[in-house]
Every structure is written in C-alpha cells, then in structure tokens.
C-alpha cells in the first residue's frame, strides 16, 4: 500500500485526502489547518473582539467539541478572551445523559467552566413531553427554537457578549437550501456567521462555518474524543435530512458544492437587521420580530 506524503509539510505520511482542494494531509497538518480555518473565519466575519466573553454551545457531539477545543486553542493563548461552555438539556430520555457526561469530562480536560440549563427549568416542559403533544410541527422545529432561546438566556445570565455555536459548512449549506425550498429568503439573515448585535440577543457566531462536517468527524477521531453512541429519537422528523442527502450527493459528484452553496447564500444576507423591526413579545417580554415570539407561539400548542 503506497501512502502519499503530506502535501503541506512534505515529510510525514498523509492520512486524509481533501477532495475539494486536492490536499493530502498528515494528522499534524490537518489539525493545524482546521485551527487556521476557524481563525480565518473569525477574522473574515469579524466575530470577536479582544477580551470577548464567549459562551460556547456544547452539546457533546463532535462538532461542538471540535469548536470548544479549537476556540480554547485560538482564544486561550494570546487573545485573552474567556470561554464558558453551555449545554442545554432538552429532556430527551436515553439520549442527553450520555452527552452530559462527555461534555463534563471535555470541559475538565480543556479547563473551561461549564453551565447546564434545561428546557424543564426554563419552559416547564421536557422535549419528551412536548413530543407527546398533538402538534402541527415536527419535534425538531420545537427543539431548535427552544434551544436557541435557552442558549441566549444562558449566555445573557453569564454576561457573555458572544454565543459561539458549532454549525459546520454542511449545516450552513443545508440551511441555505432549506430557506430557498421554503421560500423563506428572509431567514438567510440567520446564516450570517458573524451574527448581529440586537438588543436582548447575545451576538451569535459560527467559527466552524467553513469546516465540513466530515472534517469535524476526523478531528474528533484524531483527538480521541468520546463520540456519542445514541442518536436523537426525534431526528428522523426533520426536513433537514433530505437537504443533507441532496447536498452530500452533489458534493460527492462535484467536490466544493458545499462551499459554493454557502458563499452564494452569504451574498443574499442583508448587511444588517434593523433593530427598529424588533418588538417585545407581549407574553414573555423577550425580543421578537412579531408581537408574540416564536417560543410562545410554539408553547401555546400544548392546549
């Protein structure tokens, strides 16, 4: 078996072929390239200031653990930012408990403070309870909206000025495609990797927006991360799965498709969201684009 030499260091044997760029990388150069990719995205989209206090959303999956490790490496050195890991316990029996243990151990290893918040404490319901309702939308629609609120609440309580999430290039391309398929071009704004500053919202940043999911899996393997064995029981309900299959098909045939989809979507994002368009939800008092926020709209389905 002939193993090509790393195309970056030209000395060590490669272990990975990056089809979209043609590079063949050894473990050292691969990990360095991922750090560089995240750093470049942080700079390109002006995600951070010096001395940022960053709440890092860590679910315990490979993407968020990669985010935590890379941010620790990038920001823990010279930039002087503070990191606090935040995990949301949605209340999904048999699924979340394994992940909580993984996050706790990972935070101990990288020496980052860890905060846990739960749907039950914040909204009065677990995701299992919500899933049992006679609902008009899929479980993922509820979970996504409530998780975003929970993370924002936790970040506010922690005094964070940034909320970093582990959205990968695949997530970004899928969201772009879904917004187009649903005719919801207004939602392209939420794809902005550097986020927006709006009253009541902690600015959300996506440092892994240019890292393919395949490469967070490789990073997780090379770093020896514990990988969660249980899949979310409600994941099959999401339309996102269809977008993922289509895009993976395109990427396999035409490497680079994910990058093209993401970069095209960026051109459709307005430069800023007017804070004048923001209202206050008349039920919970949280900022919203409508008079009743999405969280309160969804939770009203319990009746």
């Amino acid at each position, binding site marked *: *078996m*002939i193993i090509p030499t790393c195309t970056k260091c030209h000395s060590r044997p*490669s272990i990975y072929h990056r089809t979209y760029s043609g590079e063949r990388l050894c473990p050292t150069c691969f990990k360095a390239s991922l750090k560089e990719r995240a750093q470049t995205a942080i700079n390109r989209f002006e995600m951070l200031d010096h001395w940022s206090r960053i709440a890092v959303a860590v679910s315990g999956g490979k993407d968020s653990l990669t985010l935590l490790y890379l941010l620790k490496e990038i920001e823990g050195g010279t930039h002087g930012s503070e990191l606090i890991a935040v995990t949301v316990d949605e209340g999904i029996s048999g699924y979340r408990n394994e992940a909580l243990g993984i996050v706790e151990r990972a935070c101990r290893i990288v020496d980052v403070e860890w905060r846990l918040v739960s749907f039950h404490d914040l909204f009065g319901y677990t995701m299992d309870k919500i899933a049992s309702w006679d609902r008009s939308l899929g479980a993922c629609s509820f979970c996504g909206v409530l998780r975003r609120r929970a993370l924002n609440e936790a970040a506010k309580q922690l005094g964070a000025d940034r909320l970093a999430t582990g959205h990968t290039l695949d997530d970004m391309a899928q969201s772009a495609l879904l917004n187009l398929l649903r005719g919801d071009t207004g939602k392209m704004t939420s794809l902005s990797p550097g986020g927006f500053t709006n009253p009541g919202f902690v600015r959300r940043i996506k440092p892994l927006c240019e890292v393919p*999911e*395949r490469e967070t899996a490789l990073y997780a393997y090379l770093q020896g991360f514990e*990988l969660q064995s*249980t*899949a979310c029981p409600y994941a099959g309900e999401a339309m996102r799965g269809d977008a993922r299959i289509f895009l*993976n098909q395109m990427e*396999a045939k035409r490497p680079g498709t994910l990058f093209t989809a993401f970069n095209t979507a960026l051109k459709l994002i307005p430069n800023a969201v007017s804070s004048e368009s923001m209202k206050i939800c008349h039920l919970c008092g949280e900022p919203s684009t409508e008079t009743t926020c999405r969280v309160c709209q969804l939770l009203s389905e319990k009746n």
Partner: protein
Amino acid sequence: MLVRVRFLGSLRAIAGVKELEVKLPERSDISDLLHLLSLDHPELCAVLTDPLLGNLIFVGGVEVSNIEGVGTQLIDDSEVVIVPVTHGG
C-alpha cells in the same frame, strides 16, 4: 485472514458491539469487508453501504479515500476503524 474492526459513535449502538474480528478470504478489500459486515449484521447494512453517509474508514490509521477507497486491500491483522460522519441530533 483475520481483520479487526472497531466501530465508533452511533455505529456502536447500531452494531451492538465496540469491535469484532472478521474472517475474510486472502486479497479481500474494504468493499468485501463492508459487504460481509452487512450480511452478518443487517442492521449495519444501510449505514455502511450508503456512500452518501460518507463514513470515515481507516485502515492502519489512514482514511481509505487517501489510498484506494473501498478498493483498498486488507492484509492479515489489519485494523479497520469506522467513524460515522452523520449523527442524528
């Protein structure tokens, strides 16, 4: 020849084991291994044979797309590690 296969992440729960030993004819390659695993463990068939899921498959620490893909030859005592890329949730 005997090949050791190690599953990571969600594949462990699907396979019900962390690792196993597979007996293969001489000069078998990765596609032969995946075919045999799918026959012996039908629950793995969909996740192992669907190229769109893009599992990372390592032989001796090298991802097979960096060598000869599913045509990568195995030898006696090879260690194969399969890492799922897509994880629900």
